């Protein structure tokens, strides 16, 4: 099937910037057009002269060379004129820069945390405060394929730019995005909004947008962040005020239902079942579904000494990360307990200490 344009994402063979849906993006769009036109005019002028000369002043036409080799007047002129042009370009840009940086008086503040390789969102202020979720790539690996393995499923139009949990924001409200990261630098970007902001581990940075059109807008992590850098898209749903309220209510209920009591005691099977899902979303990219890892790059879990050894060490490793292994603090106690229990009882692993309860993870966080 032919791919189709994605409103709010890239169009097929798109030639220019995305259609803007914020004032800033509009300004960027026209700045770009403005720059393009000036550059084109200079280009035509400069190379008009050059090609005229190339055509006329050739030896094969018998043209004799002149002897002039300097002219202070001309040289000063072509220093000053470009200088003025450059100033003319910088002035409108200055206005936009200042506007882009003004993140004050936001209606809603959302923290976006970049992680290898997904985004975590926390609604910090404004309507929806307290909402918090992770946002993973929704395109299944069966559409991607792998070296030597053809994809088994047809690619959708949103291939690589779709997520399980999009960010939802109300239309016409000033949204401030605070970025940070857990492991390496990522970048939060939505081209239609004219926003791109690095997410730097240990630091917070911010950007803002006020989307003026309801719709779904898509971007991708723009900063090289390791092997799955191509696979951590960003999707923002801009909805009406009413729909936003509904979404907040729904989300709150969902979170309440999902909130796991870290003191609940689970059975091995329950944990394994839950853990398999956690593994599939978070671990499989490196350690593989077979648990065999990638030799030389990502260690195998199947038969691993850590996984069959004392559980405290594994809990620490998963919580804090080590070398290329990121820290997984962002997952809940229950999710961590589940995934650790899963690895200890799966493949050929039969660890002595075969069950980890959420409370143990909670305790290990201290």
């Amino acid at each position, binding site marked *: 099937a032919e791919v189709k344009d994605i409103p709010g994402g*890239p*169009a*097929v063979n*798109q030639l220019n*910037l*995305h259609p803007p849906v914020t004032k*800033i993006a509009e300004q960027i769009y026209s700045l*770009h057009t403005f*720059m*393009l036109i000036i550059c084109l005019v200079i*280009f035509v002028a400069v*190379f008009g002269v*050059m090609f005229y*000369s*190339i055509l006329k002043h*050739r*030896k094969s036409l018998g*043209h004799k*060379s*002149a*002897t002039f*080799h300097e*002219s202070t007047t001309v*040289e000063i002129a*072509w*220093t000053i004129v*470009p*200088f003025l042009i*450059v100033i003319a*370009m910088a002035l409108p*840009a200055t206005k936009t*820069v200042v506007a882009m*940086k003004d993140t004050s008086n936001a209606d809603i503040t959302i923290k976006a945390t970049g992680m290898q390789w997904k985004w975590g969102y926390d609604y910090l202020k404004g309507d929806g405060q307290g909402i918090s979720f992770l946002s993973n790539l929704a395109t299944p690996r069966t559409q*991607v*394929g*792998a*070296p030597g393995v053809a994809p088994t499923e047809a*690619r959708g*139009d949103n*291939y*690589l730019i779709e997520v399980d949990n999009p960010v939802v924001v109300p239309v016409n409200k000033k949204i401030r995005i605070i970025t940070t990261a857990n*492991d*390496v*630098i990522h970048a939060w970007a939505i081209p239609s909004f004219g926003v*791109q902001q690095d997410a730097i*581990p*240990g*630091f917070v940075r911010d950007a803002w947008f006020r989307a003026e059109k309801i719709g779904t807008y898509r971007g991708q*992590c723009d*900063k*090289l*962040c390791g*092997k*799955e*850098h*191509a696979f951590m898209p960003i999707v923002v749903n801009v909805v009406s005020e009413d729909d936003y309220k509904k979404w907040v209510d729904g989300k709150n209920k969902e979170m309440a239902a999902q909130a796991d009591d870290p003191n609940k005691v689970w059975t091995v099977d329950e944990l394994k079942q839950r853990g398999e899902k956690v593994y599939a979303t978070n671990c499989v990219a490196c350690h593989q579904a077979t648990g065999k890892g*990638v030799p*030389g*790059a990502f260690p195998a879990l199947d038969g691993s000494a850590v996984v069959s050894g004392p559980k405290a060490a594994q809990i620490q490793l998963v919580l804090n990360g080590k070398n*290329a292994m990121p820290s997984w603090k962002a997952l809940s106690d229950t999710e961590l307990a589940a995934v650790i229990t899963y690895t200890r009882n799966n493949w050929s692993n039969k660890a002595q200490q075969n069950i980890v309860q959420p409370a143990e993870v909670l305790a290990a966080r201290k």
Partner: protein
Amino acid sequence: MSTTAINPATGHAHDQSDDHAYGHHDHPHGWRRWLYATNHKDIGSLYLWFSFFMFMSGGVMALAIRAELFQPGLQLMQPEFFNQLTTMHGLVMVFGAIMPAFVGYANWMIPLQIGAPDMAFARMNNFSFWLLPVAACLLIGSFLVPGGAVAAGWTLYAPLSTQMGPGMDLAIFAVHIMGASSIMGAINIIVTILNMRAPGMTLMKMPMFCWTWLITAYLLIAVMPVLAGAITMTLTDRHFGTSFFNAAGGGDPVMYQHIFWFFGHPEVYIMILPAFGIISQIIPAFARKQLFGYASMVYATASIAILSFMVWAHHMFTSGMPVTGQLFFMYATMLIAVPTGVKIFNWIATMWRGSMSFETPMLFAIGFIFVFTLGGFTGLILAVTPIDIQVHDTYYVVAHFHYVLVAGSLFALFAGFYYWGPKWTGYMYSEARGKFHFWASLITFNITFFPMHFLGLAGMPRRIADYPAQFTDFNMIASIGALGFGLSQVYFLFAVVLPSIRGGEKAADKPWDGAEGLEWTVPSPAPFHTFEVPPIVK
């Protein structure tokens, strides 16, 4: 053994009988000639062969990248390997191909152009060169260590660099060594130019190529140590528990970016100023008219160099800096268009009312001016902070820098080869094949990199192994172009370079009637030793 020395006072040679081994008449043969070389021409050739080999290696990596990006999905390689290829492609091209190639030109041409018998420090010159294969072994060898080569991008940003395996350490040491090589090479060039010019060759009579290299050499000694510092910090962060780039201990990943780009931006001018120099030699030769605005060319080059220290953060607009910082770096960056413009205008004024002919060097020079300016314009567009924030780290940037690096630096190198090659080999290259190489390169270059502008504007991130399917067509075009461009260079090697070394039409001492300079006063090929008696320049 009798050796000749030159008396500075009388300027003529006289014999001394002393068997001490300083004889610059030694002309060793076989492998010793190359391994132990102290002759600037031999060392220049070594540099040129090395860089061409690295260009081919980096090119093969580029072709592998383009092959994976031919269509969406993962077909040929795992993304981690893709990232290794991208990183190594950047490192190999920058440090292995372009920079050494210009040093090779410097070695060959600077002594010939200023009438010196050799470089100031001939043994150190050899050392500078032989450090490069060492670094190349470390770099390329790192593909074989566990975890593979470094995959953090050629910019080696922290803290991704801390996550890398041993390949990163090899890369760090390789860059240290290349840095040492560049610093020694730069010192050698500066001293040669400042201290070994023939009598009468004042600085303001010096050929433009020497001028641009003098300034480039200053850039090198100013910034290569800074890069060494940056990666040393990376090394200690990785292995010795320091916290330079780690917020947990009070450090800052963005600090790495500042230090890196303080090196990195001047670095890109290191790769273009000598190219400007080459173009400034060729245009007058084929326009049969003196270079227009020699003095302003010198000042413009110096201004570019000075400004280049004040613009580095334009690579970091999205890292989040105060608004004053963004504005400062935007203005400073845009200013560079002014002196660069002066250079472009001077070249065109040189051509104006000249008596032009269009042999291959001139074609490449004109191609350079034309395509480099396109890349300059996209640079200027990137300098506009809001636009950069939109397209930073997308293929727009990739398009920009291949326009200035491939169609800039590389085309200038080709132009230089066609221009000076007859002096080196003693034979004329085949004009028809040269022209074919030019047109094939120019066309396939644009097929490869022009569509990348569109991809970038539409938001395709760089350094990704797989992409949304909307980007497919332009990627296919780019990949096909890349193969064509690669084949054009293979053609260059087999159909132009090798034949013109083996034989062909004998080159006259001065094969270009419009050319000027001391290099054309010596025979073609230039004998092993030249200017043992300094020429007098009026």
